[in-house]
């Protein structure tokens, strides 16, 4: 195993992880602010993929641009769904009940979206033919697939934008306040419900954009989410709930571990490496890599 071989594995893993990372930030935002386990997250990603596909096929829009164009409509969709459905489920003040109820609610939503898409658009897989999906940048002996590289860069940019929004703008700080301590935030005059809507909208928009980026090299079908949903949740928890940089790091880590696992375990057990890493991290750091420690007594 030469250094360049190892470098290839690392690079491959990071590029894969970049898109996982973007998918996960959306989920991290939703979970961090609202404590909602959004079962339908992957399905919004799928819809983002379809929108990007139609933009490419009908209007000739490059999917990298198409991914960015999914952000405004999906933001509105997210806010709308929050307003129409999620606010009505309050859980009677019990956070566990709330989480349970919203889990089933979003599960129902997931079924509607997946099956509805199957019925309307047929299960025929689609794909966007881009030249750069089959081309690579050569950096020394290491090859970086172009589509994945562009997707990685855009994912990084979007994540950076979200991070700046959350830490530098007033609205972002209000959002974080509502996440940390809804009661106190309320006393400060922050409309917590609106913050939740905002978080959900941004979370959905981000995962739709991630879908668009994924569509540059991944085929699109109504059930595509099933391959990614578990990894998304693992990345978010691995990174530490409530931490956006954490979720990003979690996604990158998963991509990296997936790739490096191939060096130690048979290919078939690739994801076992991911899950074992996940468990180990949680045992050593129960709050995740970047998460806050749970409040002491």
């Amino acid at each position, binding site marked *: 195993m030469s250094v360049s071989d190892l470098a290839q594995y690392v690079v491959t893993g990071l590029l894969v992880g970049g898109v996982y990372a973007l998918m996960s930030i959306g989920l991290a935002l939703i979970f961090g602010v609202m404590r909602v386990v959004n079962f339908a997250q992957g399905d919004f990603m799928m819809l983002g993929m379809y929108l990007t596909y139609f933009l490419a096929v009908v209007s000739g829009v490059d999917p990298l641009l198409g991914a960015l164009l999914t952000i405004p409509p999906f933001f509105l969709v997210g806010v709308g769904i929050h307003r129409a459905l999620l606010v009505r489920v309050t859980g009677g003040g019990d956070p566990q009940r709330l989480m349970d109820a919203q889990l089933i609610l979003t599960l129902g939503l997931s079924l509607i979206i997946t099956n509805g898409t199957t019925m309307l658009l047929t299960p025929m897989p689609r794909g966007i033919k881009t030249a750069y999906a089959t081309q690579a940048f050569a950096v020394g002996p290491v090859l970086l697939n172009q589509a994945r590289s562009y997707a990685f860069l855009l994912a990084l940019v979007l994540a950076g934008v979200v991070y700046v929004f959350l830490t530098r703008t007033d609205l972002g700080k209000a959002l974080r306040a509502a996440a940390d301590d809804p009661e106190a935030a309320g006393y400060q005059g922050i409309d917590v419900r609106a913050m939740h809507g905002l978080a959900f909208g941004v979370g959905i928009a981000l995962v739709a954009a991630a879908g668009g980026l994924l569509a540059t090299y991944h085929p699109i079908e109504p059930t595509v989410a099933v391959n990614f949903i578990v990894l998304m949740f*693992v990345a978010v928890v691995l990174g530490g*709930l409530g931490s956006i940089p954490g979720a990003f790091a979690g996604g990158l880590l998963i991509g990296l571990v997936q790739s490096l696992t191939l060096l130690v375990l048979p290919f078939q*057990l690739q994801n*076992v490496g991911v899950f074992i890493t996940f468990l180990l991290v949680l045992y050593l750091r129960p709050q995740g890599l970047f998460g806050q420690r749970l409040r002491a007594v």
Partner: protein
Amino acid sequence: MRRLLPIALVVLVGVALTFTLAERYHHRVLTLVLVWATMGLAWNIISGYAGQTSFGHQAFFGIGAYVTVLLVVTTGLTPWIGMAAGMVAAVVAAVLIGLPTFRLAGIYFALATLAYPLIFRIVMEYLGYQEVPIPMIRDRPAAYMQFRDPRAYDLLALAALGGTLLLSHWIEGSRLGYALRALKANEQAAEAAGVDTFRAKMVAYTLSAAPAAVIGAIYAHAILFVVTPDAVFGVLVIVQTLVVCLVGGVGSKWGPLIGSAIMVPMSETLDATVGDQLPGIQGVVYGAALVLVMLFAPEGIYWRLGALRPARRAVEAPRVSAVAPRIDTTVAGRSPVERGAALLEVRGVSRAFLGLRALDDVSISVRAGEVLGVIGPNGAGKTTLFNVLNGFLLPDAGQVRYRGTPIHGLRPSAICRRGIGRTFQVVRTFPQLTVLDNVMVGAFAHETSPPPARARALAAMAAVGLGRADDVPGALTTLDLRLMELARCLASAPDLILLDEPLAGLARDGVETMAALVRRVRDAGVSVVIIEHTMYAVVQLVDRLIVLDHGRRIAEGRPNDVVRDPAVIEAYLGQRWLRHVEGLRDPC
């Protein structure tokens, strides 16, 4: 025995359905209802009763299925015995999974549990068990759990359901049930009241694994006929379990049954009617139904209907007699301590948080039969001291000895059982439990079955003068809440009680009631250490006073002397207070 009537009724209905349904397909639906209800019940033990939501229960379901079927395929062992082996394997797995994973809580725990069945699934595919068809045994099929008559599968699943209902029922009414409800409501309060929460969770987890394995084996034989990793370890299994439990109602043994009885036939009906002709529509409608159910009854249908029912009949409240009843804190096997002897010794205890010294070389001695007061400004380390004494925190240095043996490092529940009770600054209740049940949790520190625990709890309640046994804590006044917490503490038969600001939030007469109670507790032979800010009360109540400031002990002695100590006045009391006190009658 009468309380088993509902279970018997359910079984009877199941039998009736078994023998009245005509079509083979309808029997399959009935079997599925029973299977998923049983799986839901199993999940409910750890996730409903104990409140530890698990996304990984399909691990045990799959272990039951695979162990049973692989034993048939490789050794020809009948699944009737193989099922038992599957159950044992699942229980072992539960121990191995639970031991490390219960260190996590909430969503971390839930997702960590998800990792295991996902790993098992991949491993099974790797080992070559992608598809394991159950061999059809043509002679003596019943010996291999294969029946031509679908009614046999109905009865088999019904038996599993009945057994799991009985298990759930038994847990609900047992000491374990109280422990689980308490730790679900407030884990720390449960620990302080003597519940070994880790052990309770482990027991619940292993108990929940067994029925899951059994029903997994039955599912493989009655429904699947071929076992694939995805079918028994896959996400769809836990999704179905969650659906039936959350729709029906979590935390009740009837919830999963209600959820299963509604959602499974709905799903099958949709498949059978519209699904075959317009594929995909059944998913849309089912999804819409889930959304609607959650909007209509987010807590589950069982609880929603319960909220519509009239209130339960009141439990006979203990009469609060004029003559205050005795406080009985004797425990079999524990020798009483001689009055005045050193009961609790704190030697050189230090504790820091991120560089801040919360406790700095503190040494205190609590004597049997005294009331010791701890005062000091905010942030002095008073509650931190209690947390160290009571087991919630480990000291960085120093020792804590109780009755001569070291207790630092023990779990709070172990310390409670040794005889140290604790109340909290803000009362920590178990909100979903009645007042009596709240107090019973404390009683279980030494009692092992409900009837004597109940007696002890009622006695403790009578001792503090609290009568509202059947109310929920939400309906109580601040004083009653404090009385309840004290009763819970007394029910655990302590020698020593740590009271953290028991007078906070009380009006004058409440303060006097509590103070009188503290004196009675001391007179009954229980030592008291009390943190307080209400100085006029403290000064009259305590035998000795200790002052903490910035984590150090700056004064100790009789109240009269301590309050005149210049260092104490400087740090905490202030000149004005002293003048004010001296204006009142001399407390000595």
